[in-house]
């Protein structure tokens, strides 16, 4: 009997241990969200009321999640943040990241998650148990690299290999196109799940991340709706932007609606606004037409610096010293040059228009972050936890570290935010506004700015609502085109501070044109400002002052004003000359993120970066055409 017992026990034990590992990881059934049918979605979008005078919507058009391989490396050990997590953060939720509970603050109105197309498959393999390639030895060791030191080794290795291959090959543990498509599907699913017409808009998107001779020529591609290809287009497919545009044309033929946003021209090594095709032949009308059709805005500022202007090349612009990110020139020989900057590119567009008939650089202005923590629009200066995972995740590292291979951490900034004037918060309305260039960028705060131009606009507006209704009825808004005029245009401008932010200092208008010698010309006009300052005969206006207490990282709103409204008529108007006008509004000085870091952590203030900044917004230009 005892033996029988032994046998029974033994048999039972054998049966139990012979069971396959019960796939506990599969025991948790994922919740499948209710799929919105196309009809329900359209109905929901139609039900959202429209404001014909438009409202400003704030969002993100450039953020990286765990599907971007460089961002993924930095997330090991801190928590993988997927596109789904990025949208949660965008909606204002709190997530544990960088060792703390973090939120971006106020929810955004819209977001496009734009992961690097090149290694989405490799990232998918890394994070998905059971995916092809998941158990390759390299990825096992990557997932075990849970300290910043190990990650840095991994990252340096990764970016070195990428550069050695010219960014043109998949990584050696790439497990095939199926992984790329599965990763892309994750992007699409997250966008579908979080779209809430009228409240929060998501866009499918990706980043084409080409690097030519070390010059950054990346573009973010945004789709108007979910008619999208099976996989995105990457620099491995081609590093030539004309081929990207050709691919975009193919997608249009397949029913997609899409456009591209270039960024970081400050690191462009002179290649962002070129006079030639990549192969050296001069650009022609075809190039101009394609670029004008597919590249509708440029990202004027992000964590890796401000690309509007640089104090070295614009000594007469007193505000050109904002986030110049000088240490960028120490990496990949990215010496600053004047033709990297957006103001130069915009005016150059007028020169090329005169030659080619179409303006190849007719770019609206938009802002974004390029955050690699999966945190969209994480732009609040007083709550900055870094943007690139462990390399800038502590105050000490942000003072003394670097973000390889780009710049020193002290030269980064939390990033910029996109502002869009749209009739309602739905994909179609926001996309169309971006495509028509009725957009502005801010360096982080949510101030709002309006700009109109027309020969029939009344100067010295006092009624803001009338400024807007007249502007639409009798003129064109930012991003618009003025046809040939007999009389000088009047530009009307309105700006409103961020409801929880700093007061405003002034609104300026910048006019650009090309003179008869073919030289770029520009003029900066102070249009309207706070307080009782008077403008000198040379147009100069005294600084607004500062209430910043650097020792305590505080400021107050006892200077500046909450609303500004004014106009300027072009007293040097030449009807026979193409020109452009854009507006720039500045806040009173406030502490820079590096000052908050120093004060809160008992660290010395850095003496080679500003302790204070004047946050600002820029509108898209209005183009005057002499034709």
């Amino acid at each position, binding site marked *: 009997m005892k033996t029988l017992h032994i046998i029974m026990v033994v048999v039972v034990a054998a049966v139990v241990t012979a069971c396959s590992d019960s796939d506990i990881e599969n025991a948790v059934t994922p919740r499948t969200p209710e799929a919105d049918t196309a009809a329900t979605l359209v109905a929901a979008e139609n039900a959202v009321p429209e404001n014909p005078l438009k409202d400003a919507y704030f969002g993100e058009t450039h953020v990286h999640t765990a599907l971007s391989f460089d961002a993924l490396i930095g997330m090991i050990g801190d928590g993988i943040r997927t596109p789904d997590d990025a949208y949660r953060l965008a909606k204002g939720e709190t997530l544990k990241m960088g060792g703390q509970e973090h939120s971006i603050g106020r929810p955004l109105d819209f977001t496009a998650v734009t992961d690097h197309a090149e290694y989405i498959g490799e990232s998918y393999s890394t994070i998905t148990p059971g995916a092809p390639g998941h158990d390759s030895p390299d990825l096992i060791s990557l997932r075990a690299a849970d300290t910043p030191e190990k990650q840095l080794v991994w990252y340096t290795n990764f970016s070195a290999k990428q550069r050695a291959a010219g960014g043109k090959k998949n990584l050696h543990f790439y497990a095939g196109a199926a992984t790329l498509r599965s990763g892309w599907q994750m992007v699409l699913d997250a966008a579908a799940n979080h779209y809430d017409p009228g409240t929060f808009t998501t866009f499918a998107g990706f980043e084409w991340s080409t690097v030519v001779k070390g010059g950054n020529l990346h573009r973010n591609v945004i789709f108007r709706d979910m008619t999208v290809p099976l996989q995105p287009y990457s620099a491995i497919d081609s590093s030539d932007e004309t081929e990207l545009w050709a691919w975009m044309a193919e997608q249009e033929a397949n029913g997609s609606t899409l456009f591209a946003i270039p960024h970081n021209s400050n690191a462009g090594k002179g290649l962002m606004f070129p006079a030639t095709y990549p192969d050296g032949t001069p650009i022609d009308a075809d190039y101009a037409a394609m670029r004008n059709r597919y590249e509708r805005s440029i990202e004027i500022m992000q964590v890796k610096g401000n690309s509007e202007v640089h104090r070295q090349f614009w000594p007469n612009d007193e505000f050109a010293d904002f986030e110049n990110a000088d240490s960028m020139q120490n990496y990949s020989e990215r010496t600053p040059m004047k033709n990297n900057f957006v103001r130069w590119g915009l005016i150059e567009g007028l020169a090329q228009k005169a030659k080619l008939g179409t303006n190849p650089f007719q770019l609206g202005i938009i802002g974004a972050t390029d955050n690699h923590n999966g945190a969209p629009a994480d732009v609040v200066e007083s709550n900055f936890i870094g943007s690139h995972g462990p390399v800038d995740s502590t105050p000490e590292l942000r003072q003394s570290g670097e973000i390889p291979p780009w710049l020193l951490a002290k030269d980064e900034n939390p990033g910029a935010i996109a502002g869009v004037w749209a009739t309602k918060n739905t994909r179609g309305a926001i996309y169309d506004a971006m495509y028509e260039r009725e957009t502005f960028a801010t360096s982080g705060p949510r101030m709002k700015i309006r700009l109109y131009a027309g020969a029939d606009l009344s100067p010295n507006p006092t009624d803001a609502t009338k400024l807007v209704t007249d502007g639409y009825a009798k003129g064109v808004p930012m991003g618009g085109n003025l046809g040939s005029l007999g009389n000088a245009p009047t530009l009307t401008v309105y700006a*409103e501070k961020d409801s929880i932010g700093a007061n405003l200092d002034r609104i300026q208008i910048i006019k650009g044109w090309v003179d008869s010698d073919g030289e770029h010309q520009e003029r900066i006009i102070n249009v309207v400002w706070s307080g009782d300052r008077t403008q000198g005969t040379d147009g100069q206006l005294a600084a607004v002052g500062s209430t910043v207490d650097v020792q305590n990282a505080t400021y107050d709103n006892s200077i500046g004003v909450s609303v500004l409204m004014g106009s300027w008529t072009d007293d040097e108007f030449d009807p026979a000359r193409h020109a452009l006008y854009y507006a720039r509004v500045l806040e009173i000085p406030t502490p820079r993120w590096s000052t908050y870091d120093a004060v809160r952590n008992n660290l010395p203030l850095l003496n080679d970066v500003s302790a204070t900044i004047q946050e600002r917004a820029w509108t898209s230009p209005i183009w005057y055409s002499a034709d």
Partner: protein
Amino acid sequence: MVAKVFSEPLVHFTIIGIALFLLYQGVSPGARMDRVVVVSEETVALVSQRYAAVWMRPPTGGELKGLIDNHIREEILYRDGVEIGLDLNDRIIRQRVLQKLEVLSEESGGLNPPTDAELNDYLRDNASRYANSPILDYQQVMLDPVRHGASIEADLIDVLTKLNAGVDPTTVGDSSLLPASATGVRLDRLVRDFGVDFATAALTLPVGSWQGPVPSGFGWHIVRIDRKTAESAARLEDVRAAVELDWEKERRLQARESYYQKLLKDYDVRIETSPSEADLDQVQE
């Protein structure tokens, strides 16, 4: 002589012992399964399922053979690894086991979907999280103290008086694009447009007359609430999905915690350094 040997109890015990030992060797899982790999139908199905989950189609005949060959190779190598003790003291394996146990412990609280009664209890206990926002219809007029300087107080009183006397709101105050009026506005929208101070104050205003001044980041406002729907408790049918998600999350966390606490009771924990009293207090968490 032989018969005498075989009648010794010690010999009986020895023979029975050897027989038991041989029997055990024969039937024990370790002995039999060490050198036999069984690829059951369930295993084949599982392997195919895993493949299909990634590739969105079942494997072809050739692919399936490859998958099974892989499985066999893995199984044999794995057993060899375990035999020579490769699974011991490995951090990655340790973490994986912890991960699996975490899921197991979370599910020890039960897998059944919540009943309506359970959801309603949860909703009641966390009412403020799901409450329907108060909704306002309002009008407002803004005065920026920077523009009015020393006369701001007098100007505010002037505007307040005029508005309550029926003057058209668009003719008083400072011009801006802040919404002069809006209907059906939820609290979060109000906070977004004007800031928290304004929204909190607006909620306390009586309905039907101009009141103020109410502060915001823009300046001072004279505000009229035309209609107010108070915050109301959510009905389960309106917020069911969110409540289910949160209820499930809480159940998992509680199950995980009680699983661990139950295990902890059976352990004798000794710390061999000499921590301060303060450190000791935190150990049991």
